[in-house]
């Protein structure tokens, strides 16, 4: 019935074909246009956050050199960089961008189930971004509370942006969560309801699985951020005492009584940890599809991969307090959260093994998306292993406030997902735009980004072991830090600037491709998934022309023995292959 309900809408969709420029590209209800809007907006704020990080690195690498960076600015840069990258770039790009583009195409649907809500989701997201950006220009500037916005300092006098910046930040987060919820309802319903005939849940590509489970995590976890944002807004504007203890700040008594800052931390990380996987799970899924397609081999252990995604999603809700070891807690709690943290490494490691085993004896094509996917395996293993260090209470305590932590989470949550973002853009670019990009330029972009980011974050681990504290505006003269630490900091800054400028290659490639790129083949990678089988490239409104596709197989029929091509698209019926040989192939599993 669910399926029929969607199929019946065929004629309806045709009716609403957008006519004017505005209904086609601005107030568009087409999931592909909305995805591009989401993507462009996210990348735009991402560039803002990238510039902020460059400013931070300038200060750290060459202290007392730049007069335009003072301690207040520095903390504002840190805060805005973190918040933008995690929420407004990665979350929005993976779910709003790739989720929007890929879900309907990959499950064989004409559009999201609620196109109007989908459009609304983007515009509300845009409002949240605008509110966030306005906070740069209000008196006092944006908030400098750190991206975790811990009270009491987030809303106490003396913190940058305490008057307007923090209000706009909290408001923007609230608006973002509304936007995300509208989008998320769509993604979940579309996956559950609008799959084409034959597309069972277990035939969905892993990209869809990753995005689907990440959306569920987001829907359940973002309310925690919303609750903490609302309660902090109350503390700030109405002088309630949810989080604010009785303190006087800068000689002023703001009238708070006995609130609990730890309560905020619990709420924040109850959102914050699943958030890691909201970003990571779509990346896991996408990387699985990239590896399988470009290695011409079925993904190793498909069902295991699905279960691992589900298990990671479930476990991600019971590890949050490992972000709070230094806040102090009952040792038994510490033990509990360390254990759950280590347990979550099991399904995660399983995925890594399966990726590597997918490459094993594959027919590996080192095209640009594949390079990024393999690069991701490196950075993710690297960041994941340091996560095992930090998951243990006794190791976390001395390392928590050092650059080791900065290195860890940038490796696992910064570089890794961004490599996947680039890999995914290079992979689906021909389908999205109908044009090819310059392969050589893409490879240069990969190698310079990959080696460049390693030059940034590998030395940071070492700085962390030396005890160089994070969050400091300037290190000053301290005995425990040798002068060489500063040299290393200068090197890291050079590497960071190098990586930042390298991204020009990407944008140059994009612009060149859009203007002069050769016309792309509809299925340049010989991929099996449905989005490559559309009648038009780029797909038109409604995606599938007159008839919806029918799915006959899973997404990973690569190099099937006895079949003439090394791939069989999902919409090719079972009877169209050489039956005897195919039978042989099945028995082999």
């Amino acid at each position: 019935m669910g399926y029929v309900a969607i199929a019946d809408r065929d004629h309806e969709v045709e009716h609403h074909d957008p006519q004017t420029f505005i209904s086609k590209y601005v107030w568009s209800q087409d999931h592909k246009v909305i995805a591009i809007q989401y993507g462009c907006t996210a990348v735009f704020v991402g560039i803002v956050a990238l510039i902020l990080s460059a400013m931070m690195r300038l200060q750290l690498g060459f202290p007392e050199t730049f007069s335009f960076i003072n301690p207040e600015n520095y903390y504002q840069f840190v805060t805005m960089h973190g918040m933008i990258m995690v929420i407004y770039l990665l979350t929005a790009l993976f779910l709003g961008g790739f989720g929007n583009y890929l879900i309907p195409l990959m499950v064989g649907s004409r559009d999201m189930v609620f196109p109007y809500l989908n459009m609304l989701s983007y515009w509300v997201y845009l409002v949240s971004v605008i509110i966030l950006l306005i906070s740069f220009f209000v008196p006092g500037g944006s908030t400098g509370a750190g991206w975790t916005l811990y009270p009491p300092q987030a809303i106490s006098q003396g913190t940058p942006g305490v008057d307007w910046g923090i209000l706009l930040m909290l408001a923007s987060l609230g608006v973002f969560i509304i936007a995300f919820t509208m989008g998320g309802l769509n993604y979940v319903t579309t996956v559950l309801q609008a799959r084409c005939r034959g597309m069972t849940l277990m035939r969905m590509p892993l990209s869809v699985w990753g995005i689907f489970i990440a959306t569920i995590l987001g829907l359940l976890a973002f309310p925690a951020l919303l609750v903490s944002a609302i309660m902090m807004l109350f503390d700030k504007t109405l002088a309630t005492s949810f989080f604010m203890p009785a303190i006087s700040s800068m000689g002023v008594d703001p009238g708070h009584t006995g609130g609990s800052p730890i309560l905020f931390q619990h709420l924040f990380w109850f959102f914050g940890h699943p958030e890691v996987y909201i970003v990571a799970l779509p990346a896991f899924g996408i990387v699985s599809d990239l590896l399988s397609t470009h290695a011409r081999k079925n993904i190793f252990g498909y069902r295991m991969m699905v279960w691992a995604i589900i298990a990671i999603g479930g476990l991600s809700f019971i590890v949050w307090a490992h972000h709070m070891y230094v806040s102090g807690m009952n040792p038994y709690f510490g033990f509990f959260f360390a254990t759950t943290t280590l347990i979550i490494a099991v399904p995660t490691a399983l995925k890594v093994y399966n990726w590597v085993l997918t490459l094993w004896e594959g027919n590996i094509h080192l095209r640009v998306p594949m390079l990024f996917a393999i690069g991701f395996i490196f950075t993710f293993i690297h960041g994941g292993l340091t996560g095992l260090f930090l998951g243990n209470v006794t190791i976390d305590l001395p390392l928590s406030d050092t650059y080791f932590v900065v290195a860890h989470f940038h490796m696992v949550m910064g570089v890794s997902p961004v490599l996947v973002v680039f890999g995914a853009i290079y992979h689906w670019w021909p389908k999205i735009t109908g044009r090819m990009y310059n392969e050589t330029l893409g490879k240069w972009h990969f190698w310079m980004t990959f080696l460049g980011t390693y030059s940034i974050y590998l030395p940071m681990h070492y700085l962390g072991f030396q005890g160089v504290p994070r969050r400091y505006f300037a290190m000053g003269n301290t005995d425990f830090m040798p002068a060489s630490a500063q040299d290393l900091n200068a090197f890291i800054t050079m590497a960071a600037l190098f990586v930042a400028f390298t991204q020009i290659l990407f944008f140059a490639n994009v612009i060149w491709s859009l203007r002069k790129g050769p016309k792309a083949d509809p299925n340049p990678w010989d991929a099996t998934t449905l989005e490559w089988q559309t009648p038009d490239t780029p797909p038109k409104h409604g995606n599938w022309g007159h008839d919806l596709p029918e799915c006959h197989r899973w997404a990973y029929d690569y190099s099937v023995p006895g079949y003439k091509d090394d791939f069989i698209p999902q919409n090719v019926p079972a009877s169209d292959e050489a039956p005897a040989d195919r039978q042989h192939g099945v028995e082999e599993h």
Partner: protein
Amino acid sequence: MEIGLIVLATMLAALLGWLLKQSFSTTPWVAGVTAEADHQAPFNARPKLVALTTFLAVATSFFALILSAYSLRMELGDWVPMTEPSVLWINTGVLVLASVVFQWTRNHALSGNVARIKPGLLLAGVLTTAFLAGQWLAWQELNASGQYITVNPANAFFFLLTGAHGLHILGGMYVWGRATVRAFGGQEMDAVKHSVELCTIYWHFLLLVWLVLFGLMLST
């Protein structure tokens, strides 16, 4: 955080159980035709019902987390239990009635008794508006007696919880408004029926939330 955790764990367990059931004995690598049931949503639900259910999960998570915060904050020294305004009892009764009227309207709508839809919708709307007005009165009463939001964390939570609950009801009133306008516009009775169905579920949910909130606030 136990409350939030338990509620979330229950919701996740239900979802994971269903997902695992879908995936356990499958052989995805075998090509071929699948059963019709395999590309359908749980319980043969329609898209809007799936979306509503998902939203109810989001709202449950939202309220459960506030209640977690409530129980954590309550244990700290400065908590003074609040005396809830007695008008809340009347409000609760009104909200129960609204829920009953919605159920009544839905039953008639589903059994094809279209004539009952308009009066049912109107009555439910009036009752719900009365509930919101009653909540507003409770706020006024508290403010008049000096029980401001800042006096005590218990008060702050009272205003936060009633406000959040009221906003959710307002959201429901938007859907109710659209359905009512359509019903009186005399067109698309099927769509109206579906809206009535969804509203009924939503109102029951918000009644349940209110009973939990009210019970908790009374007992602490």
